[in-house]
């Protein structure tokens, strides 16, 4: 067992990859066996993630289970994995969605099943690796590797405009991350190592910080996506197969906010404090914009996609409230959004399998024929809206609370007020959608006699519902693990001697930031 306990992070990361290789090499012509193997591997990975959860000591909030080995360039680039509270919950979320996604696709997929399973597992390795890497190059490798399987998932098994969506997704994300690569190379040049710990101790001038922060934040903002960089998201979601949408909404979008919290903010604290008002405002715009656009959608999947823009806006607002409370709420919201929106995409997928349409106008009164399905859908919808007692509430509440009390964010109370309208709008469009689909008389004849949830679908949905309720009722379970780590990560931002680019210790007013960005011409030391 020493092998497992010493290398648990490597195991949890690379077990899915091993499964993918076995499928590609041995089971390429046997779809059923490939499906079962993928399912088994994903479940085993979930088991490992649970072990991780049980073994994690929440009190110090430090990096634990550290694995370090020289990779190349004489150990200046390392294979360095570690897990703290933030990584922990996100790894657990990924590992939980993995088997559910694989289970959910077993009937909807007709062609190239082994390749699909391999890609799903490969994606899982890349995602978990991204959350656990503590070496910048290792992080970048995992970060970019996520693109490939997702690109295939959308491009091969997606809808009619899948190629456009896949290429757009790839190019958009890649475009952001190449600038991050330049920033990484620059920091590497300054630090002489790729180790995150050494980078945190790096002494960068405020101007350098601004440029580097901009490069990092751009990459992460595209991934989140922060308004106005979100245009790839609806395309990708609508064209992606159900499994792709679930992983995309459930985990991939969190990469952006995770990256902001883990890298962009603590590495360049002065720039983060300076830019916080801008990003917070963009977050609020995202909240309202996403909600308003979601309201006018006629395609259920697109509606859920835009609701993601809105929900992720909350996370961004929470992070850039620059308070531990807001940021912890942000991490909780990432988890909650992964569960509820992942669930919604699964449910929409189930409906699409039965009716082959997602147009709101085609539905109505489905609750008559499919009561169980309607109930599960209702719980998930309410969780997504943020009904107290379900998971969505805790995150949004903490975010608003943290932002309200933020001392570093100008006009924080105004931002909270605007963001709160997003909550209301969220309730409106979600319930409006629910009403159109499930309530009223059974409209079309095609909607009659649709089968209710099958056993396999129960297996997929019940864990999600359980967690949605559990987290809503007992959020401390997660908050206790996340909180100390968030405080540690945000330490550089609250350090007393923080020198801001414009020399003013007080947070910059909104209009001052562009002037500073424009004034900072010199990059080279």
């Amino acid at each position, binding site marked *: 067992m020493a092998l497992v306990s010493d290398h648990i992070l490597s195991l949890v990361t690379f077990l899915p990859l091993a499964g993918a290789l076995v499928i590609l090499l041995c089971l390429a012509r046997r779809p059923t066996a490939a499906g079962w193997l993928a399912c088994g591997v994903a479940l085993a990975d979930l088991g490992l993630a649970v072990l991780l959860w049980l073994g994690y000591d929440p009190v110090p909030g430090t990096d634990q289970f550290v694995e370090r080995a020289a990779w190349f360039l004489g150990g200046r680039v390392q294979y360095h994995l570690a897990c703290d509270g933030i990584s922990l919950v996100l790894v657990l979320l990924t590992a939980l969605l993995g088997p559910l996604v694989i289970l959910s696709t077993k009937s909807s997929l007709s062609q190239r099943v082994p390749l699909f399973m391999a890609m799903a597992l490969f994606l899982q390795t890349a995602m978990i690796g991204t959350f656990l890497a503590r070496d910048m190059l290792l992080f*970048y*490798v995992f970060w*970019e*590797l996520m693109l490939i399987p997702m690109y295939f998932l959308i491009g091969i098994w997606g809808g009619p405009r899948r*190629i456009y969506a896949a*290429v757009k997704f790839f*190019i958009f994300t890649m475009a952001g991350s190449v600038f991050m690569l330049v920033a990484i*190379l620059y920091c590497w*040049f300054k630090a002489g190592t790729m180790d995150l710990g050494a980078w945190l101790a790096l002494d960068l001038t405020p101007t350098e910080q601004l440029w580097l922060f901009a490069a990092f934040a751009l990459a992460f903002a595209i991934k989140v996506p922060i308004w106005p960089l979100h245009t790839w998201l609806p395309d990708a979601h609508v064209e992606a197969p159900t499994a792709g949408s679930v992983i995309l909404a459930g985990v991939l979008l969190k990469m952006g906010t995770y990256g902001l919290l883990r890298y962009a903010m603590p590495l360049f604290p002065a720039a983060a404090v300076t830019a916080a008002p801008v990003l917070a405002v963009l977050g609020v715009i995202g909240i309202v914009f996403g909600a308003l656009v979601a309201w006018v959608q006629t395609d259920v999947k697109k509606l859920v996609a835009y609701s993601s823009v809105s929900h992720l806006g909350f996370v961004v607002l929470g992070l850039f409230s620059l308070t531990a409370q807001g940021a912890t709420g942000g991490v909780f919201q990432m988890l909650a959004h992964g569960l509820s929106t992942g669930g919604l995409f699964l449910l929409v997928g189930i409906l699409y399998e039965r009716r082959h349409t997602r147009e709101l106008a085609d539905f109505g009164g489905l609750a008559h024929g499919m009561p169980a399905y309607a109930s599960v859908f209702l719980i998930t919808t309410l969780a997504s809206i943020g009904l107290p007692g379900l998971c969505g509430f805790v995150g949004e509440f903490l975010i608003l609370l943290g932002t309200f009390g933020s001392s570093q964010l100008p006009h924080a109370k105004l931002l909270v007020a605007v963001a709160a309208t997003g909550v209301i709008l969220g309730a409106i469009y979600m319930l409006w959608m629910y009403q159109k689909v499930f309530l009223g008389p059974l409209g079309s004849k095609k909607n009659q006699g649709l089968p209710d949830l099958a056993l396999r679908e129960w297996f997929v949905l019940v864990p999600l519902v359980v967690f949605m309720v559990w987290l809503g009722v007992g959020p401390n379970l997660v908050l206790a693990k996340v909180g100390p780590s968030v405080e540690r990560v945000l330490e550089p931002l609250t350090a007393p001697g923080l020198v801001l680019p414009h020399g003013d210790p007080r947070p910059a007013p909104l209009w001052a930031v562009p002037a500073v960005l424009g004034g900072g011409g010199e*990059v080279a030391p």
Partner: protein
Amino acid sequence: MITVPPVNWPALLPYLVIGGGGLVVMLVDAFVRTLRKDHLTALTGLVFLGAAIAMIAVKPEPGPQLGGMLTVQMYTRFFDFLLLGIGLVTTVYGSAVYSQDGDYRPEFYPLVLFAVLGMMVLVAASDLLILFLGIETMSLAVYALVCGRRGELRSSEAALKYLLLGSFASAFLLMGAALLYGCAGGTSYAALAAVGGTGEGGPLFAVGLGLVLVGFAFKVAMVPFHMWTPDVYDGAPAHVTGFMATAVKAAAFGALIRFVTIALPGLAAHWSGLLTVLTVLTMTAGNLLALVQASIKRMLAYSSIAHAGYLLLGVLAILAPAGGDPGRPLRESAVVQAAGSGLLFYLLGYCLMNLAAFGVISQLGRSGGVEADQVDHYRGLSGRQPVAAAVLAVAMFSLAGIPGTVGFLGKFYLFEAAIRAQLVPLAIWGVVNSLLSVYYYLRVVVVMYMSDDQTEPFDGRNWETILLAGCLAALVVLLGVFPAAVHGLTSLAFGTMLG
């Protein structure tokens, strides 16, 4: 009065094995009537292996040979092994193609051997005369290889074009060498460095150097001397195109790197401005033109131009005066060391991924020697030939520089060196360019995996080629994950050249 230089036979053994082997293969082909092409393939393979064994088994004292005409050291040995490997792979690809088409071209085998011989000499040259000899031996063989499809107009046209333009380039090189001889009183690199270092060369020296660099620029397909590349790459049979894209480029860069580090160290300041412009042009033009190509071979031709641009970035990092201090000897500069070893690593990776790609391309076709040379011909390949499609996809991702492949790490090493050499804007431009390139590489993956199948699909006809290409693709991934050992090797190799 003639003086006989001491001949260090062990050091020259690999060249003799390849050259002699080429002659033997020629004669065997001419005399043995009952020969099958498999025999020639095996014989050629044996010659390559023999040369490799000669290099491993006989370890000569490294240093200048034949009175300083060429230098044998770990740097040249690195390229020798690389070139032998490419030659071997090309032989296997080629014989597979010829056996499919029923078009038996026995002269292919000695030509590959002679081309490799020329390349090895080219990289080892320490004298402009030997450099010219190497370039010509290589080029003459490659000219003939390009028209490898008898009776096909495009192939002959490509060969003629390549011959004419190549002759011009050689003439430039020769003219430059003559001018340099006039200024320096000798043709050895050392003599050039002695004159260049003092700055007494005068305008004629500069013109001569410029002309020699034009000769190099032609061989590595640097903009604006790249015009021949797409036509020739398109016209030549795919396995020869692969040979040109990898071996010719690797050898030319090997020689160029040696030339600029040994003969030009004091002249960096004069040339880096011009080279910067050419680097930017090469990267950008290559990528922009590749975007609009419908032919996969033309696309890869432009992509090879773009990759030449990335490699030139590394050359610039070497030239950037030794970390800001022109007086310091090159070998003391960590930047030069990083750039040089990065260049070698990149070249190795570049050769691996291109060979893998061209392997897949060469084995796909119709009877009668029709190649699948349009991107559209690869529609739905993943369904018919999953392994071949996966290999090509890996090669494309690697060429695009996606992490987890050797293409990413090669670019990482190069851009990192460029940033350390204070070439930050160029490095950023390189990164932006590699983003641009993602689009056209992805297109190949899109048609293979996401488009519907063709009505008249091309057949994959050869499992040996796919097996070999698969091994190369595996190496691409392996080196992309575990680069440390090989990068250590390239670092050591480059170090030996600096002395």
